Each structure stands twice: as structure tokens, then as C-alpha cells.
């Protein structure tokens, strides 16, 4: 048995033991996203050891890696072949793992234009609550055999089982990229982001903060040049640093606590009454630092067709996500039991 099989066997034992002792397991990659979701009271199951790229076929545009593989390792490998993860995931820590990225389902600035983590996931290998190793999906782009359990795992926060391996679709890096900055108020920026997205402009990220709209263009050199003419504004010297600071939330605008994430239909009005937001994803996500009660924010978002997440707080978070209405909540419960009938992973993290 190699070390990975050994790890898997031991982890299977661990799951069975937890089941027997009616204990719960909270899965941890590097802990970089430990702040995200509800606080849990459970034993920690570390998966960082179960690491390594299993298969990478640049020509197939697919990569398969064990869940403990560090995102940095994957991104460096892809970069060598001039490829990238389309969803530009936030790391929130140097050791962030692929498993954590997929379990939280968090995507970065490119998301509205190149798809989310869930869009890129092609297949998964999972350890379920009965310690069974299961495979869903595969390494091909088109696959409709069986229900899409792989995508169900994305964003499930480890409450359905342990992700062991994930196959993702990758994309070639654009030949050229450039970031422009234009001065305008939030409402106008939201409108413009939507208007541009409805026209053939090679957008790859958009954001608004502190009175300025930021636009990243990606594509062939000629296409980017042509779009720059169309859009105008000033080219900022260090585009990559700006998008990284936004993605990793290291910019001061996102240091406020509690930090709320409003996920909205892109064209929804900017709620300036809540204070100055940071807007990204073409208007689809708006970050607010506000002490407004959760219920007020949820009602506001719901009215506009969106939902709210308490993303970061100084206090322990007990209700991060918008509660589900019935009968959806009961359906979720039944789905969880389908994969984890004994509740080994029922940590309440989401």
C-alpha cells in the first residue's frame, strides 16, 4: 500500500469510528477558510496530507488532483503550460488547498465571465459517511451519466462527505490583459457593467470601489487594444495587484467587520443607504461593512432577488447563510442523509 492508500484506509477507519461513537467530523485542508461558515463543534479531520496532482493533460484541458493539493502548486503547474484555473479562486492563506476551494465553492474576479468553481468541476472522488469511496462525473467535459453529485459537493462545506480527488477543467491564459479605471458613482457603475456585459467586449473582471470602476480586459493583444479604445478611462499600472487584493480581501475597503456579502442579480440597484460597498462580479456581488441587523439585510437582498452571507466577523458566526424556506430545508436534510445517513459530517457549518 502506498502512502495515499494508507491514508485513505486510516481515514475510512476514522469515519467509521466517528459513526460508531456518534461524533462529528469537521474537514480541514489548511484552515485558510476556517473563518467561513458557522462555527462548529466537531473533531477535526485533516486532509492536507492527501495531496498531489494525479493527472494533468494540458491538451485535454483537465487536471485531477487530490483534495489536499495546495492551490499554489496547481496554479504554478498550470502556469508552466500557460494555463489557469478559470474561476481564479481566492486563497485566503498561503497553504489553501483544492479541497477547501471546492468545498467552499468560492470563486474570484473572473467568475462572471469564465464561470464558477462549480462550472469547472468535472468529477470527484468522495469518501462518504459510510466510509465508501465513490466516484462521480469524470475527466471529460460532457458527461450526463447519473445525477451530478460532483457539483452537489461544490460549496457543500464538507457536510456531505470528504472530497478525496477533484477533476477540473482548465483554460489557456489570455495572451494579453489590461486593467482600466474610470471615475463614476456606484449606480452608474452597476449599469455600465451590465451594459458592457451585453455587448461583445472581452471582459474578464469588473469591480467598483471608492468612486471608481475597474475593468479588466483579457484576450488576444489586438482584441484588448480594440476594447481599450472603446471603453476609455486610464490604464492602471499594476492591474494584477489590484485584482489580487480584491480577491484575497487584503484591500482596506474589505477590512470592515462584520463583512457582509450580498449576492444579487447583476442589474439590481446599488444600496447606497447601507454605506459604501465594494462591488464586483459585474454587479453580482456587493460587500458591505455594516452593523445593520442580519434580518434587515436579508429582507433587502431577498426583495431584489438575492441573498446575504455574513462573511467575516469578530464574533463567532452562528448563522452565516440565509436560512432556507420550507419545503427546501427539509429537502436539503433528506439529501444530506442520502450521502451521510449517520450524520458524521453534519457539523452545521452551513
Amino acid at each position: 500500500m502506498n502512502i495515499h492508500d494508507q491514508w485513505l484506509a486510516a481515514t475510512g477507519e476514522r469515519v467509521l469510528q466517528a459513526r460508531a461513537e456518534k461524533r462529528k467530523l469537521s474537514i480541514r485542508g489548511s484552515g485558510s477558510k476556517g473563518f467561513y461558515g458557522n462555527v462548529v463543534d466537531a473533531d477535526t479531520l485533516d486532509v492536507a496530507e492527501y495531496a498531489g496532482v494525479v493527472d494533468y493533460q494540458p491538451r485535454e484541458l483537465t487536471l485531477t488532483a487530490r483534495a489536499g493539493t495546495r492551490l499554489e502548486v496547481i496554479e504554478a503547474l498550470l502556469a508552466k503550460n500557460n494555463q489557469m484555473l478559470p474561476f481564479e479562486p481566492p486563497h485566503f492563506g498561503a497553504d489553501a488547498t483544492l479541497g477547501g476551494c471546492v468545498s467552499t465553492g468560492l470563486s474570484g474576479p473572473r467568475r462572471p465571465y469564465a464561470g464558477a468553481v462549480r462550472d469547472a468541476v468535472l468529477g470527484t472522488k468522495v469518501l462518504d459517511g459510510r466510509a465508501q469511496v465513490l466516484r462521480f462525473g469524470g475527466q471529460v467535459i460532457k458527461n450526463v451519466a447519473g445525477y451530478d453529485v460532483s457539483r452537489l459537493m461544490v460549496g457543500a462545506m464538507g457536510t456531505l462527505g470528504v472530497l478525496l480527488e477533484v477533476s477540473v477543467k482548465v483554460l489557456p491564459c489570455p495572451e494579453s490583459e489590461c486593467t482600466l479605471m474610470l471615475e463614476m458613482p456606484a449606480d452608474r457603475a452597476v449599469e455600465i457593467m451590465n451594459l458592457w456585459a451585453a455587448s461583445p467586449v472581452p471582459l474578464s473582471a469588473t469591480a467598483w470601489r471608492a468612486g471608481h470602476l475597474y475593468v479588466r480586459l483579457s484576450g488576444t493583444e489586438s482584441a484588448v487594444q480594440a476594447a481599450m479604445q472603446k471603453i476609455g478611462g486610464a490604464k492602471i499600472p499594476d492591474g494584477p495587484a489590484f485584482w489580487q487584493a480584491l480577491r484575497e480581501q487584503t484591500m482596506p475597503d474589505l477590512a470592515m467587520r462584520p463583512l457582509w456579502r450580498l449576492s444579487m442579480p447583476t442589474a439590481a440597484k446599488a444600496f447606497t443607504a447601507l454605506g459604501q460597498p465594494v462591488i464586483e462580479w459585474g454587479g453580482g456581488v456587493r460587500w458591505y461593512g455594516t452593523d445593520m441587523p442580519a434580518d434587515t439585510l436579508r429582507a433587502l437582498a431577498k426583495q431584489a432577488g438575492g441573498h446575504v452571507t455574513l462573511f467575516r466577523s469578530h464574533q463567532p458566526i452562528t448563522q452565516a447563510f440565509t436560512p432556507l424556506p420550507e419545503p427546501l430545508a427539509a429537502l436539503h436534510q433528506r439529501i444530506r442523509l442520502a450521502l451521510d445517513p449517520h450524520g458524521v459530517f453534519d457539523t452545521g457549518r452551513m
Partner: protein
Amino acid sequence: MSALPADFLEKLRRLLPQDGLLTAPEDLAPYECDALSAYRRRPPAVALPRTEEEISAILNLCRMHNVPVVARGHGTGLSGGALPIEGALLLTLARLNRILMIDPLARTARVQPGVRNLAISQAAAPYGLYYAPDPSSQIACSIGGNVAENSGGLHCLKYGLTVHNILEVRAITIDGDIITLGSRAFDAPGYDLLALITGSEGMLAVIVEITVRLLPKPERAQVLLAAFDSIANAGVAVGQIIAAGIIPAAMEMMDKLSIQAAEDYVHAGYPVGAEALLLVEVDGVNEEVSDGLRVVYEVVKACGATEVRTALDEAERTRFWAGRKAAFPAIGRISPDYYCMDGTIPRGRLPEVLVRIAELSEEYGLPVANVFHAGDGNLHPLILYDANKPGELEKTEEMGGKILETCIAVGGTITGEHGVGVEKLNQMCVQFSSAELEVFHALKAAFDPPGLLNPGKAVPSLHRCAELGAMHVHHGQLPHPELPRF
């Protein structure tokens, strides 16, 4: 056709307007099959509701009387998903056919399930927008059916499948409850049930409303046609184009038999006599397309293309595609019947899989025409046969099964876009272990506890797999050790 209970039918009649329930044999005939017409069964009754309220009430009634329900869109499915089931009500969504709203700024359309795929793009066209997934059946198939099958099309490689292009689905459960999956935002709280219902083949809930994402029409799209004197060279070119950093909007391959049949049928201007034809569409802003085409041209030349042409105008582009889109009916003209397979493989394994298909063709004495979405490795081998010759359909199905098993063996899948339905149940036993199949059954039970929605489709019972003795070998263990051997 076993009859439905009289009291059930009576109540059903009262729920629906006069023209909303069909029971006369001549009215039922059109609902006997979907586009996999080798399988047929007359449904005992067909309900044609017009509203969500009617659907809720029908499903409630079915649950109370324990009557199974088969949902049907426009019946173009190729795996028997909408095939009637013994003693089950057929519920067609065709009359829910309104486009409820188009929001040009947010680039979304809210539509009822019976709306035809192409009708969405047509309605969005005045805003310069379109709905990307374009199955070849797009003039006929319903968007509800597209969601239920996670349909693809020619442009999947760049623009994704149905699952990538929808935001929100309203569905009605067997309890008659309306649930909303996904949201009009980029994500929704809870598990990704939008992904789960996409491709669920009518097994989890009845889809009654869909909000789709619309995309701006590309500024320019141009097709390049390359002919090769060996299918292997064409296969290599596919990989090289991607390796050069190009993601074509579409990349399709046809073999000699398909080229000839298509040319005879629509006169697309294809180089008859070539062993393989590659159609590569590049789209985007003007400059990008010029650059992309140049790269593609150089790559196919380097891979030994014997002839390369780019469509000079929109008319020629349409003609190039017309040949490809008409490939199935074109084959239909040269053979009494054909059987369309739908496996996906990693692109790099294309040459060996084609060799294997040729061997099988030889072995079974059945010609095969290959038409495929080369960009995403989705093969559509068409097996030519004659249903009137006794035993030939069975032979064809057996050979088809072997092709699909070859796809699994090289790391692919038994269905890329047509679904499992009733057709590929046996191959599901090969692709999945019993533990995995049990998860599928458990998920169905989570949505549909009484098991009344399209029962028996899409996921084989463990007994069926055991009886078949299918050889999914998981971690070196015998398949289904828990079941008795037959």
C-alpha cells in the same frame, strides 16, 4: 397499456379543461415514443396542463393514487427518457410555452418549460443576445427537456452545457410543492440543487419555469474547414489547436461516410473523398477572430490538412454548418435505420477509439458513420442497420453497448448529452459501482419519496446490474457482492 384506475381518471378529468386530457387511442399514438423510436409503448392517458396550479394538482393526485408520472417536453430525447411507462400518466409540458420575460440589461430570460430552445434565441435577438446551448434539435426540443437532459450542442467547448447557462429553476415535487433552485444571482444558499436537477431526466421533480442566461452575440464568427486524408491526422489537429491556446467556439469532425452522405443531401461544398473533415469555428471580437483563424490555419496545415477553406461570408458559413447539422438525416437517407450513440472520451484517445469502432463495425457487419463534437470528445457513432431484418436491432444494440464500454475503458462516459433514459441502463452498471448507484437511488428518494416520477429510468436497479453480471470492478472487488448471483 394497462389502464389507470377509473376514480383517478375521473378526478383528473375534473382538474383539467376538456381538451387537457387525452385517452382516445388515436390521440395517444403520437406519445408512444420519443426520438429513440425503437422503443414504444402506448400511454394510458396524456395530461396537457396549462398552469402550475394544474400541475401541482395532477402530481398531488398521482401521489394519492400511487400513479407514476412521466414528464415529457417535445419528445426529441434520444434515450427513451419520455418513453411511457406501464400504468403511468404521461404529463406533457408542451402547453406551458410562454416566454415570460426578457431582461436585456441583466441578460436573462424567464421562460416556461415548453418553450422551444431556438425560440429563446429568436426572442432575444432584437437585443443582440442569444441562448448559447444549441442542440441540433433546437428548432424542436423544449427548454424543460434541455434542463432535464443537460443538453449540449455544437458550442459546448467554449460556452458550456445547459447547466452552465441557467440561473434558476422552479420545479414541482411529487407532493405538489413548488421549489426554487438556484437564484437570479450567481449563487444561492444551500446545496447546488440547480446542478442536481439539471440532467435529472424527469426523476426528481417537474420543471415548470427556467431563468436562462443570455449572452451577447459575438461580433464575428467564422468557420474554417479542413480536409484530411487520415482521421488520425484530424484527431491530432484537434489536440494541437487546443495546445496552441485556442478555444474554438465549435470544433466538429466528420468521417468519410458522413461527409459523403451530408454532401449528397445538402450540397454543403464538402471535399468528398476526404477521410476526415474538421469544422472549426472561431468567434469573438473582430481582431481576435482574425488572429485565431490564422493560428488554426497554421496548425491544421502543419497536421497535414489536404485542403483548408474559410467561409467567405455568412451564407457560406451557414452552408458549412448545414452539412454538419444535417448529418443525422443525411445518414437516414442512405440506410433504412440508424442508431445514434453518444459516448464521451478524452480527446487524446480519439484515434484508438475510432480504430476499435472500425473493428466492431467489421465484426458485426454493420457500417458506422462517425460524426462528433471533437472539441469536447463527444462521439456520435451512427450504426447503420435495418430494423426489418430479424435480429438486426438486437445486434446493433449489442454493438452499441460495446462502443460505450470502450468509452468507459479509456476514461470516458456512456453519455455525453443524450442521457441514460431506458437505453443505457445496462452500461450504467458498468460505469458505476453498486454503492454509487445506491447514492443515486437515495437522492431520487430524497426528492421523490414514493418513487413515482419516471420510475425505472436513468438509474438501473441493483438487481438489474447483478442479473446482467456487468463487470464494474471497484477496488478489485467483485461487483455487487451483497446480491445473489443468478
